[in-house]
């Protein structure tokens, strides 16, 4: 591909070709066969009070074969001018045309170009028309997936990959790569600051890399502009939908399980993610097996094999519509044991009022979340008096709360706590295997993952370079299958009711609030739409059965030996007896798997789901501060860390392990400067021309990314917010 550099003044766009988008919309939609890649460069004042765009560039299809134009300029008004040329030539304003413009991290660049674009559009088109042809799709305040205005359809390529442009280009093995480090972002550049070859090269390379990565991505998934999804989960959704549509009965089953407003709300309240917790008796201490109390033990780390897919392949979930089984009645109260018994054969959603909750002696991995208890409190927040352990309840000294749980969580609450309760309502559904199309998809991607992992392993053994074409091609396929396998859970846990976020004319973000009628209507739409096929309750049961398995192993290992767990892995103090117990349970599950055919076969070997595998690590020291903040040392004296909010690779060529130093420094007050994160602040302002440091600058709204340092905190210095709104 050849690129022709074109200044925006010389830019004379030619008309592009549009094809009809599939679907039964009343007015047919047409989508461009080609796309545009856009990137902007921004600068800010030293005190971070002001920011502006000082350089931009986009690629545009050329009439010359195998070549594209690289259109560039300096000011946002120039970008708006160039985009309006495109609208005019392609008559985007007069037809239902959409021209995709990909921006890597649209949520950032959007704030720099939107004001000028809208202001310029208003000079050419009526306000009514602009409002009619404007559509925002955002997943949260200021988190934009797509933004469409007058046929220009801005799409975020970051959401498509969840990777930085550099990593994505490497993954796609594009011909050109991002010129990382070529431009110093700390230098303030104005719109009239002379730019040098390196500055332009950096900008152009970004756009070319984005172009190439997009083309590669589309080729890899056999996509075009009509079919390319908006987010990474779109790929999985498409695969699952294909399986789902293979048999008409799947749609019938999907619709049969339609949720009512009540059951939807109960499920939303029941849903929780993975269980991440550390044994409070070991928090903020270095556990060493080389000396001291734990000499003679070993520290082991085990991981579940594809934990969430395993639940969906081997465990059970609701297979019918939820119906009311019990409603509170003074003359007929329900005992928790009855509900637990019921839960053995039915899927249960139980709402209960709890008080005087107290953890049983020796339990070090509590399941009851403080956030759920606080959310369901009856009365003022001050009436609740809780003793907490890293977000989980140890004791509820005063107050009442209502919680909704399913049979798995109820079992563990009952096992781990003493408490008073009153059951309000019980809804039940039949319990059975996950739908066949999900199980088949899990099998398919698990087989793919196993196959490509095996091939990669063989290549590693044979000493084949990881940049050789074969290795890269195999790695790509491995990544696709891995992503697909993990993405299935993501699809099942997606809330069927989407809240839409948008920005008003003043630049304030808002979202719609739904009342029961709206929820009912949205649920009806969800189940009637041909595009939807995933029952939300499956996602709820996937995570809860995963928590159940994790806690089963924590209990088996012994609460006193348990160190730390995160969703699908456990660190623990081990000895031969504990290992034997784990292996016995693994064997029991393998036997069940053999009987139920819960495995895949590759090269004549069975690969089982549902196994708790030992990681090949000889850990000699382990230390954690709180959830998602731990470090360990292996016998080769290598330090490994996982700290939420601290990047693996940081600024100034530094990395997390280097910045931590030693395991004992994982301590409250420890500062990570190079590997700390970033924060974003926003300026909301109308387009204007101002003088900054003697430079005339076109300014408008802006997003300013600040580098922040991360200071570790322990419970002693917990900095919890006192007000729910802040």
């Amino acid at each position, binding site marked *: 591909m050849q690129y022709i550099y074109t200044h925006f003044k010389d830019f004379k766009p030619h008309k592009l070709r549009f094809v009809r988008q599939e679907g039964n919309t009343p007015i047919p939609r047409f989508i461009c066969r080609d796309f545009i890649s856009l990137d902007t460069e921004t600068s800010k004042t030293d005190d971070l009070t002001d920011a502006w765009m000082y350089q931009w560039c986009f690629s545009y299809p050329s009439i010359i074969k195998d070549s594209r134009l690289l259109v560039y300029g300096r000011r946002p008004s120039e970008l708006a001018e160039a985009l309006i040329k495109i609208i005019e030539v392609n008559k985007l304003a007069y037809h239902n045309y959409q021209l995709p413009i990909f921006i890597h991290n649209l949520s950032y660049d959007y704030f720099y170009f939107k004001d000028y674009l809208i202001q310029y559009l208003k000079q050419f088109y009526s306000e009514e028309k602009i409002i009619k042809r404007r559509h925002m799709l955002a997943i949260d305040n200021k988190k934009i997936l797509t933004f469409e205005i007058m046929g220009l359809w801005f799409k975020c390529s970051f959401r498509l990959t969840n990777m930085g442009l550099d990593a994505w280009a490497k993954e796609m093995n594009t011909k050109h790569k991002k010129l990382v480090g070529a431009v110093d972002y700390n230098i303030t550049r104005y719109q009239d600051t002379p730019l040098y070859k390196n500055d332009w090269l950096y900008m152009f390379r970004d756009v070319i890399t984005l172009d190439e990565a997009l083309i590669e991505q589309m080729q890899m998934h056999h996509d075009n502009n009509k079919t390319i999804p908006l987010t990474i989960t779109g790929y999985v959704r498409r695969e699952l939908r294909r399986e789902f549509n293979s048999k008409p009965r799947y749609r019938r089953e999907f619709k049969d399980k339609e949720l009512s407003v009540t059951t939807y709300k109960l499920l939303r309240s029941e849903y929780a993610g993975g269980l991440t917790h550390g044994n409070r008796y070991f928090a903020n201490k270095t556990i060493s097996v080389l000396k001291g109390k734990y000499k003679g033990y070993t520290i082991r780390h085990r991981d579940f094999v594809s934990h969430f897919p395993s639940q969906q392949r081997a465990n059970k979930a609701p297979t019918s519509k939820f119906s009311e089984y019990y409603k509170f009645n003074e003359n007929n109260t329900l005992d928790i044991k009855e509900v637990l018994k019921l839960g053995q054969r039915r899927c249960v959603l139980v709402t209960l009022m709890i008080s005087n909750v107290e953890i049983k002696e020796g339990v070090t991995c509590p399941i009851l979340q403080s956030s759920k208890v606080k959310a369901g409190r009856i009365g003022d927040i001050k009436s609740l008096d809780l003793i907490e352990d890293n977000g989980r309840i140890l004791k509820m000294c005063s107050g009442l709360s209502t919680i909704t749980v399913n049979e798995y969580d109820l079992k563990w609450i009952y096992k781990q706590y003493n408490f008073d309760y009153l059951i309000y309502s019980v809804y039940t559904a039949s319990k059975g295997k996950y739908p066949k199309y999900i199980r088949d998809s899990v099998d398919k991607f698990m087989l793919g993952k196993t196959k490509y992992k095996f091939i990669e392993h063989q290549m590693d053994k044979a000493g084949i370079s990881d940049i050789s074409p074969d290795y890269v091609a195999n790695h790509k396929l491995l990544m696709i299958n891995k992503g697909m396998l993990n993405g299935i859970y993501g699809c099942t846990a997606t809330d069927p009711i989407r809240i839409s976020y948008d920005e008003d004319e003043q630049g304030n973000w808002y979202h719609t*609030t739904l009342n029961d009628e709206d929820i009912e209507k949205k649920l009806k739409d969800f189940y009637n739409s041909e595009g939807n096929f995933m029952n939300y309750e499956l996602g709820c049961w996937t995570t809860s059965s995963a928590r159940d398995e994790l806690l089963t192993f924590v209990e088996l290992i012994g609460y006193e030996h348990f160190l730390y767990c995160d969703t699908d892995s456990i660190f623990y103090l081990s000895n031969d007896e504990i290992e034997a117990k784990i292996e016995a349970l693994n064997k029991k599950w393998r036997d069940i798997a053999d009987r139920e055919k819960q495995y895949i076969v590759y090269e004549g070997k069975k690969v089982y789901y549902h196994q708790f595998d030992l990681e090949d690590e000889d850990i000699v020291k382990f230390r954690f501060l709180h959830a998602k903040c731990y470090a360990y040392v292996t016998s080769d004296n290598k330090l490994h860390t996982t700290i939420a909010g601290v990047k693996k690779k940081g600024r100034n060529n530094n990395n997390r392990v280097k910045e931590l130093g030693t395991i*004992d420094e994982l301590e409250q007050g420890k500062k990570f400067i190079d590997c700390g994160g970033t924060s974003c602040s926003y300026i909301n302002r109308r387009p204007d021309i101002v003088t900054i440091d003697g430079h005339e600058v076109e300014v408008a709204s802006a997003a300013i990314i600040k580098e922040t340092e991360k200071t570790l905190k322990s419970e002693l*210095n917990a900095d919890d917010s006192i007000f729910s709104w802040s």
Partner: protein
Amino acid sequence: MPRDRYSGGRPRQEQLISQRAVYGLRADSPNYVEKYTRAEIDAINKRYALIANKRLARLEKAELTKSSAAYRYIRKASYSGFEFATAKNRFKTSSRSLDNEDAIEMLYQLHQFLFNTKTSTVSGTKEVNKKKVNEAFKALEEKHQGLLDKVNQFAEDNNIKDRDDMLSSFFNSEVIDRLIELYGSDYVDEIIDGITGSLNLSDGAALDLIEKFLNSTSTYPATPFDFIGAVINYYDRLKKSTNEDDAAAYEMNFTSDNMTYEGWDL
């Protein structure tokens, strides 16, 4: 370090065991500069524990047990039976019965509590709270001026003078909590303004009316503006349904400064 330094009085700077030494002892690091005998560690623990326990008692007396993260931690430690804590939310005053590792752990915990934790003292907790409150007020000023006016009005109506109490009383009240949950904090002031403006009520009366409305229904309007309309309709319905006397009293109650609803089934 001479033993007599640990007897009596508050610890002076030269009496303090350095952080480096505590970390060194705990990590068994060969680099730490000062070395301590077991007896010395026990003596330091005793001295530190007495000071720490006085701080805990003062936090209790000042009713800051919930807002002090340090107190909450000791409460958890006591509840969990950590070696360094007693069952009554206090540090043990003697570490003699503990093994070496636990005694050093106790020294570490005491050191953290006394020297590295702001909320271990009454003034520190108040300072942290004040900082949080100031941050909250700053955020209100910058982003939610209308909401700030409501907080001030609410404080005036309820004769609350302390800035901390002003915020906590306002935001922890159930009705505000519900409004934030339903429509987000951006709309709270608009809702209250809309209702007070349309019905000529004080802020307090409007909040009471909203609370009654929220309790009377399980379906809520989609937008904050529809919500205002629904509350106004609710008010009209109430007025119609009550007899003349009741309506007059009802009206009076809503417009008077002293809002009480005892005996009123709205």
